[in-house]
């Protein structure tokens, strides 16, 4: 039966399991939008195409299903670039569909023409320009396969207007993806690698597992848990790995890297073996690579061969899915505990607990860390939290303790301000039963604030915590430490966020003292619908500890001791 390219597009999306798309219509994608009305698809109208891509990304990260964003040609397409780059850096499977001018106009600088496949070439896993209706089905099917197989990532399909309008025979079966492009066989771990890895693990006295995003993407938490428990190996988390191993597990050390706790980084520096699982030795994780874990042998397991040896030379590199690789390794691991090593790490904790802001005497200040900690308690640690980028993001990672995969969604690799609100919308759409909290700073929140209208129009229920300190806080912190407190362009004027939310028809509270935090959170949870809480927190607060960029991982700027700080307050 003949169908138009537009009909084939939706038919294929529906067959791929798509139920929701995030988008914004325009001239070159109009035929597709017209056809959409005849298919069982929920379309969420965004206020900016960047929002559509972050929503698709949040949708994918919260559920594991492919997120879909759709936009028109030219500016619609270029507005997607930041969201696509975000998804690329964090290995998030999204498919972006853009309209393109008619195939005969390509190259003529036609109205709203842009070379979006050229622009997105380095920030997509792959992209396609479709100029004929006949190619739509195969391309869509292949795009979904490419987005999800191996290391996931974004795929863009640019479809010319005439390809959407013209008709051809539609045959789903015959439009199977090119076998050369998809279905890369999962290679079994070789015997020599297996033996080499097991020798290192079984002989290690001070091993640490470095748990990355790959654990969540692969669904490998049970295997990691088995490995850690069987051999008594402590687990340090990357930012995106959080949730991949339960925070409440006694072997979980917490987050590593630039804002990791001192004992976590010190344990890594003192380790004799690092077992890196689905992580990529980002510079925020390693600090100075030359002095990074110099006494440690390294086993690196990742699905992406190009990550092995990229930053850190490794002793055993295994390319493969974590479930497969760990499934093959774990039975050979000698059962046992490493009590001396655990005790050493406990000793490293030293006075860290005393320095913890949660243990400071209440001096009437509202610290962001208080908000995170109270939110964790109030939501029983079971919310899906979507954070933006900056200080609040680090405080969330430190003080909200995630026990399950896909419960923290954050832009790690690209560090995209403005990510949180739209990504939270996507997360809520993919998991309507989850309690979804957005946490954003006053800076990042204003970058994508118009999506509040999307929330209202679509009746979406996400709770929003704006951590409002009147500064671009993380940049201000760097200026404080490294630029002699010369606060260039970091003091930030914001509107009254509660009034803004109310103007969009949403409920809102403003919180200025510690005592108001929990009641406001409880009130927000009790309300069926979106609530924004403007937490007006301490202005010049600092994320501790901090490893300055490029410094040795053990050279941390520590949190000032509670005693000293209290003395300062009293003076």
């Amino acid at each position, binding site marked *: 039966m003949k169908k138009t390219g537009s009909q084939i597009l939706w038919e294929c999306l529906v067959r791929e399991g798509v139920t929701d798309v995030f988008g914004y219509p325009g001239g070159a994608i109009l035929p597709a939008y017209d056809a959409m009305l005849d298919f069982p698809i929920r379309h969420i109208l965004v206020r900016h195409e960047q929002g559509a891509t972050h929503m698709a990304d949040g949708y994918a990260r919260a559920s594991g299903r492919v997120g879909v964003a759709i936009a028109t040609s030219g500016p619609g397409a270029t507005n997607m670039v930041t969201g696509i780059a975000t998804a690329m850096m964090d290995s998030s499977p999204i498919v972006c569909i853009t309209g393109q001018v008619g195939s005969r106009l390509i190259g003529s600088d036609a109205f709203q023409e842009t070379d979006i496949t050229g622009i997105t070439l380095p920030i997509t896993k792959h992209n396609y*320009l479709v100029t004929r209706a006949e190619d739509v089905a195969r391309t869509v099917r292949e795009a979904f396969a490419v987005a999800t197989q191996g290391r996931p990532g974004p795929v863009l399909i640019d479809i010319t207007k005439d390809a959407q309008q013209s008709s051809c025979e539609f045959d789903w079966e015959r439009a199977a993806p090119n076998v050369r492009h998809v279905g890369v066989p999962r290679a079994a771990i070789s015997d020599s690698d297996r033996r080499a890895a097991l020798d290192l693990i079984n002989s290690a006295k001070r091993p640490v597992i470095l748990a990355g995003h790959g654990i969540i993407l692969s669904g490998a938490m049970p295997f990691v848990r088995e490995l850690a428990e069987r051999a008594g190996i402590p687990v340090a988390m990357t930012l995106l790995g959080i949730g991949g191993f339960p925070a409440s597990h006694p072997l979980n050390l917490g987050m590593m890297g630039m804002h990791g706790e001192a004992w976590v980084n010190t344990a890594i520096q003192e380790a004799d073996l690092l077992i890196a699982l689905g992580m990529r030795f980002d510079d925020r994780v390693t600090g100075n690579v030359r002095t990074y874990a110099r006494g440690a042998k390294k086993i690196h397991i990742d699905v992406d061969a190009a990550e092995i040896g990229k930053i850190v030379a490794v002793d055993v590199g295994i390319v493969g899915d974590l479930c497969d690789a760990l499934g093959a390794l774990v039975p050979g691991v000698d059962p046992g505990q490493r009590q001396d090593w655990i005790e050493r790490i406990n000793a490293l904790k030293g006075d860290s607990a005393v320095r913890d802001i949660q243990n400071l005497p209440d001096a009437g200040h509202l610290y962001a860390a208080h908000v995170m900690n109270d939110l964790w308690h109030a939501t029983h640690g079971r919310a899906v939290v979507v954070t933006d980028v900056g200080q609040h993001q680090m405080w969330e990672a430190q003080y909200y303790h995630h026990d399950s995969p896909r419960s923290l969604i954050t832009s790690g690799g690209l560090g995209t301000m403005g990510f949180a609100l739209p990504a939270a919308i996507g997360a809520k759409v993919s998991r309507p039963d989850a309690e979804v909290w957005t946490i954003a700073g006053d800076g990042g929140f204003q970058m994508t604030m118009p999506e509040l209208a999307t929330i209202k129009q679509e009746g979406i229920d996400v709770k929003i915590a704006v951590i409002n300190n009147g500064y671009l806080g993380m940049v201000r912190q760097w200026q404080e430490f490294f630029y002699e407190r010369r606060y260039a362009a970091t003091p930030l004027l914001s509107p009254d966020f509660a009034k803004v939310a109310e103007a969009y028809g949403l409920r809102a509270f403003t919180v200025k003292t510690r005592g108001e935090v929990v009641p406001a959170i409880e009130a927000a949870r009790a309300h069926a619908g979106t609530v924004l809480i403007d937490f007006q927190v301490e202005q010049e607060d600092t994320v501790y500890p901090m490893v300055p960029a490029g410094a040795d991982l053990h050279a941390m700027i520590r949190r000032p001791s509670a005693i000293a700080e209290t003395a300062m307050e009293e003076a």
Partner: protein
Amino acid sequence: MTPTDPHVFVVEVEDEPGVLTRVSSLFRRRTFNIVSLTVGTTERPGISRMTIVVDAPDVAARRIEAHLWKLVNVVRVEDVTRAASVRRELVMVKVAADTEARTHVMKLAEVFRARVVDVAPESLILESTGTSDKIAGLLDVLRPFGLLEVARSGHVAMVRGTGTQGPHAADTESEIVHDSNVSYSV
């Protein structure tokens, strides 16, 4: 051969618009320096063959190979740097040669098995095929006469013997990671 010598990759790709951009963009994006890149059709319809010479140490070369495999349109990647292979480059040289110098230049050309493909009153065009060393030698001896123009094709390479060294062939595996203790299940 030292670990920093140029690496030679044979890459088979689908003959589709934009594939050359995808490959070259990868090298640019990852800041690897291409020494030469040639593309042409192959014995198989729809498949083009690239020979890419890159200035990169062994560790980087392994990453390049891994990145190339990730490109959807790449069909086969082979690092032939240490394989027994035939490598050739074609050069055309326009040499300043008046009547007086012409005989001398032509004699030198004969030694290098270079062919004269064009003769003009004040210049000659020579064509030569060979390894980079041979071509460098030819250019060295011609330089005193005056090199008016040099055009080089870039390298093409082919593994000797029957069949190709497939990516999964046991002997290539050891070649690729020859000087590190790292083992890989690729």
